[in-house]
């Protein structure tokens, strides 16, 4: 079925597939963990029961998403070895310690306190439960920090040397961790995770508001999400701009592909809004351009010269079309999020936030937009640094394990079938949880599990807890 593909191609597809599936869950759980910590803290602080309803409602969704993130993440930690062993051998001394720190400082923290956060309120009381919830949120952010440091080092390597067996060895750990693109990538990704979660929470709130605009929990989650979008989307667009300038400095070829600049422009490069990259003929077909705008954005000068792909050897170019289109998808969705946030702000200002069906419908449609934008952004940056795994140093084709195409092909097919089945089911269960209306009195209840069917009462303090009867 996959005859004719090289082991390298199959291994790349496998990595892209498993990674893309995996990133969906952390992108959601990073934001959701912080949202849970905030709602739990607000509940303890204000004693407003609505926050507690929100916490319990999203807690279950978090548990499913987090579980999927864990199991799809274990795959990643071994796939470096099974499929990319030469990379592992060469880069292990530099990236391995950072990943070890991720496990030690973040994964254990999340996993250790998750049990208490999900199951332990009655056993430890509200104070320690809050602490556990905060630790889970902190763990997700720490995890993002380490893994983005690793990824950034592979994009903009620094602080390394090489030993006599051809391994990259660490010379200056500060330069490795705080490599040139790391701060930008970290901010951009964490904000993306927050926005992704805000869109989901807003979409779910809007869905329930469309059915009943009086529900206090639906109102609260929609309102919180709209504040988040209004405040964070402009920050994210600014962060993305800084990230782009950083990429121009350190990975100019990636920016050429993003912009679709096949030719150099000595006096002002146009911004190509749309077109169809034709890499074989080295030109942009059917392009719609705004003269000199690209130079203005990237160099803050209308007439600044910008080099194009004609200055790059063919074997060092990334696949332009993928990068060009995925970048546009991400940016387009970013501005759509800004629009949604502004609309929400105006509706709130007019006092119509909860009685605006069109706004709510758009919010529902935009619910998954964060995931698409995150994937598009990662495709841009990962495909854009091809054909290298460590930018400018180690080629993807030189990173591969001595695996045979049938072995990689067989495991790829297994991953595809199993991921669609297993994670498809998980996403279905998450949607099912989301379709239930959040309300006071539904705490801890799960109507579709007969042994746990509940006469649940809301938790007033740590001593009174949901009682379930079989």
């Amino acid at each position, binding site marked *: 079925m996959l005859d004719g593909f090289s082991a390298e191609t199959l291994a790349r597809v496998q990595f892209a597939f498993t990674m893309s599936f995996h990133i969906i869950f952390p992108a959601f759980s990073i934001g959701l963990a912080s949202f849970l910590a905030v709602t739990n803290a607000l509940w303890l602080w204000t004693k407003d029961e609505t926050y507690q309803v929100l916490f319990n409602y999203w807690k279950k969704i978090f548990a499913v998403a987090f579980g999927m993130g864990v199991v799809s993440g274990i795959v990643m930690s071994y796939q470096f070895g099974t499929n990319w062993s030469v990379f592992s051998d060469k880069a*292990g001394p530099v990236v391995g310690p950072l990943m070890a720190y991720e496990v030690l400082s973040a994964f254990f923290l999340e996993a250790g306190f998750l049990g208490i956060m999900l199951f332990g309120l009655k056993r430890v009381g509200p104070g320690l439960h809050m602490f556990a919830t905060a630790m889970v949120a902190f763990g997700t952010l720490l995890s993002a920090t380490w893994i983005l440091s690793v990824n950034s080092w592979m994009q903009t390597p620094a602080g390394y040397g090489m*030993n006599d067996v051809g391994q990259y060895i660490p010379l200056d750990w500060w330069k490795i961790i705080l490599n040139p693109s790391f701060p930008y990538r970290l901010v951009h990704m964490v904000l993306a995770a927050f926005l992704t979660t805000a869109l989901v929470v807003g979409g779910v709130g809007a869905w329930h508001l469309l059915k009943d605009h009086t529900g206090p929990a639906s109102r609260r989650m929609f309102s919180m999400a709209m504040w988040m979008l209004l405040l964070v989307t402009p920050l994210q667009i600014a962060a993305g701009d800084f990230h782009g300038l950083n990429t121009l400095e350190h990975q100019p070829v990636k920016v050429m592909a993003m912009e679709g600049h096949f030719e150099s422009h000595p006096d002002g490069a146009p911004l190509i809004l749309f077109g169809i990259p034709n890499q074989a003929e080295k030109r942009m077909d059917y392009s719609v351009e705004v003269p000199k705008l690209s130079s203005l954005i990237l160099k803050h000068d209308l007439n600044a010269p910008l080099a194009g792909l004609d200055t790059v050897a063919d074997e060092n170019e990334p696949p332009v079309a993928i990068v060009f289109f995925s970048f546009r998808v991400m940016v387009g969705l970013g501005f759509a999020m800004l629009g949604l946030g502004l609309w929400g702000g105006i509706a709130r200002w007019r006092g119509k936030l909860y009685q605006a069906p069109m706004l709510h419908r758009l919010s529902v449609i935009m619910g998954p937009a964060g995931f698409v934008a995150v994937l598009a952004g990662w495709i841009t940056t990962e495909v854009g640094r091809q054909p290298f795994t460590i930018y400018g140093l180690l080629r993807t084709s030189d990173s591969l394990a001595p695996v045979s195409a049938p072995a990689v092909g067989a495991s790829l097919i297994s991953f595809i079938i199993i991921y669609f089945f297993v994670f498809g089911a*998980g996403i279905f269960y998450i949607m099912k949880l989301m379709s239930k209306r959040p309300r006071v009195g539904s705490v801890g209840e799960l109507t579709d599990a007969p042994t746990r069917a509940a006469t649940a009462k809301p938790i007033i303090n740590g001593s009174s807890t949901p009682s379930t009867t079989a």
Partner: protein
Amino acid sequence: MFGLELSFIWAGIIALSVLIYVILDGFDLGVGLLFPLSKDESERDVMMNSVAPIWDGNETWLVLGGGGLLAVFPLAYATVLPALYMPIILMLLGLIFRGVAFEYRWRTTRWKPLWDVSFFGGSLVAAMCQGIALGALVQGIHIENRTYAGGWWDWLTPFTILTGAALTVGYAMLGATWLNMKLQGRIQAHMRRLAWPFAVATVVFMGVFSLWSPFQNVEYFNRWFAFPTAIFSFLVPALVAAAVFGLFQGLRRHWDIIPFLCAEALFVLGFIGIGISFYPFIVPSSLTIAEAAAPDSSLMFTLVGTLVLLPMILIYTAYTYWVFRGKIDPEDGYH
């Protein structure tokens, strides 16, 4: 550092992580293995709830094993994983099926049996593959020029099938003794009865493994019959005998905790035995600990943080176990 080679300190830390993984995730994989032997759905609910708050932390030790190996022994990571390509991939897929079952089971009535099967099947495949991987390592892995140079099916031999079956049965024993400790009443009695055959089978497998593995590699043979390590040849079996005695005695007298601790002690002793056989190799016959080690700057940088973080992890992991100590209330759980 203090006259000790960094790489040897690290070999110790990695070995400790793998051991902690085996003794912790071993019993929760074991709970999955026992699923088909349960009497009804309510038994399965309680069995799963006994590990629900902790399985995630247990599995993190496996991630540390992978991530840690990449950090400090990248060459071992880069050669062992391609050598064990298929068992590793199958193990990961197995872990996916069992891991998601923890949540999915509670989200559906119609498909609940499906996720029961997935919890069992995933645990079975993961346990078998881990045992096979262990056996394949004991057999030895062929490395040339810093890459794996063996065949794709080298990991599949009668010996690795034995180790796969042995680890699976051993995990089932851990699971049964864990449940004997955590449950009460009718289910506890059921689990205690189940512990018997798995415990007997585990002891038999340990015996067969101990007699067979010295013939896999002449180095193991020499190590077990040469001074000073020959001391362990007497000590380890004596301790094994003590643990077996405690285990059976505990089961006979209906003790809660002793059978579980003795079952875990069997794993620790088996692990020490394998460690003695391996030393000073990290990949038997091919790579020594020193050869596989990353440069000192990587080892040192990672060690500093590990010495701070690992004790903290052990403390809050212990705290979590403490919070969820005691018998399981069948009515409890957030579901």
